[in-house]
């Protein structure tokens, strides 16, 4: 679901539909609330093996959001340690297959490949940027955390988070626009 808040920031909650995704444009500021799954390199490698073998995944990605992150350990009494985004481009080889299964959004930092951007157009999906290196600040938006798969991977396990007002920006929308390209055009001197 996507709604526009009074301050101009769009409120985003999974599950997301094609119609929701079409409401997002590159450069839009968003606040994400609700369920987000974490997965990075090692977890993606395992998901890909399952997809190639035609087996079910440990999480149902349809309509969902995957956050590329490997959090630092929580201190006692805390929900999580630092939890900022990792580079999205490393997941490029895996992303089109997940988008084909119905994944609607990913959160990371850094540019995506042209095949991923094409897949986002084909399957109606977006890529959000979160602020890389702001892991301490971003931890405050995480309300619950539960490991749902691949616990042996440590920080790279798949975690189910519930977030509230998690701040991000639309980097790639489903029409092929890219915030990074537009930013350089606007500010290069």
């Amino acid at each position, binding site marked *: 679901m996507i709604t526009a808040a009074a301050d101009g920031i769009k409120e985003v909650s999974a599950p997301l539909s094609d119609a929701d995704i079409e409401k997002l444009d590159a450069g839009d500021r968003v606040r994400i609330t609700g369920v987000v799954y974490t997965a990075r390199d090692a977890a993606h490698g395992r998901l890909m093996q399952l997809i190639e073998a035609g087996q079910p995944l440990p999480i149902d990605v349809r309509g969902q959001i995957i956050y590329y992150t490997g*959090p630092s350990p*929580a201190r006692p009494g805390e929900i999580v340690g*630092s939890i900022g985004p990792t580079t999205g481009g490393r997941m490029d080889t895996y992303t089109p297959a997940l988008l084909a299964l119905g994944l609607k959004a990913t959160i990371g930092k*850094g540019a995506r490949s042209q095949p991923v951007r094409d897949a986002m157009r084909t399957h109606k999906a977006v890529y959000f940027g979160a602020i890389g*290196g702001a892991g301490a600040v971003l931890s405050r938006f995480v309300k619950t955390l539960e490991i749902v798969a691949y616990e042996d991977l440590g920080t790279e396990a798949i975690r189910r988070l519930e977030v509230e007002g998690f701040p991000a920006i639309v980097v790639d929308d489903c029409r092929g626009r890219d915030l990074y390209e537009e930013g350089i*055009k606007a500010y290069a*001197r």
Partner: protein
Amino acid sequence: MRDVHVSAVTDAVKKLCMEANYELEPDMLRAFDRALTTERSAAGRQVLQILKDNAQMAKTRRMPYCQDTGVVVCFVELGQDVHVAGGGLADAIDEGVRQGYREGYLRASIVRSPFDRVNTGDNTPAVVHLDLGPGADLKIMVMAKGGGCENRSKYKMLTPAEGIEGVRSWILECIKTAGPDACPPLIAGVGVGGTFEKAAILSKRALFRELGAPNPDPALDALEREVLERANRLGIGPQGYGGDTTAFGVHILTYPCHITSLPVAVTIECHAHRHKEVTL
């Protein structure tokens, strides 16, 4: 001969790892403040403000500034009149990393083999560079080096004919191709000269210089300023959202080299520039 017990090395490394991850150095905080006054992009200024808040929160809550608490790169300057007693120096450093990362709630990000990729669980081993020199001091410099920016570090063997212009273009090329992936605003550590490996080590060592402090060599200082100014005209900006603050600094170290060679290594460092040092 002065004895330094390995337990002192371990304790020092443990503390440096923790403090580096919780507290940015004052030069970085000044760089955020300065950029907030010059950045034209509203999105860029917002990023810079959040990073400043992030530094404050990390310090007060003693949590890592970034969840990628890095590979520990450790430069050791060992005075030849120092005798490290009670065990091995490398083991003592790794024990410090182990204790610092476990007790400090820092992320274990090291895999035991680049191929089987099984996490060692305690962020060991460190990457250690040892320099032997005169004196009876043992200086330990620790950097928690993030992986995302490290992945954008590059090396090129230029020809002597390409000269300073070639070096300037190559550093700019590295900053440009690092782009948003490496968490700008960036710092470029540059090693010029030596050999293949010497240039790379210098590019890391160069990052320990205080940000904003001039290069003691006036010609290199002018080169650094020019590259920085041009980097900040690329338009990449904080986090790549577009803007004027793509890099905070360019730090160059040089070394003599072979008549055939002009090696240039560029270590890309993100704004999570975490380093601490101590002399025992």
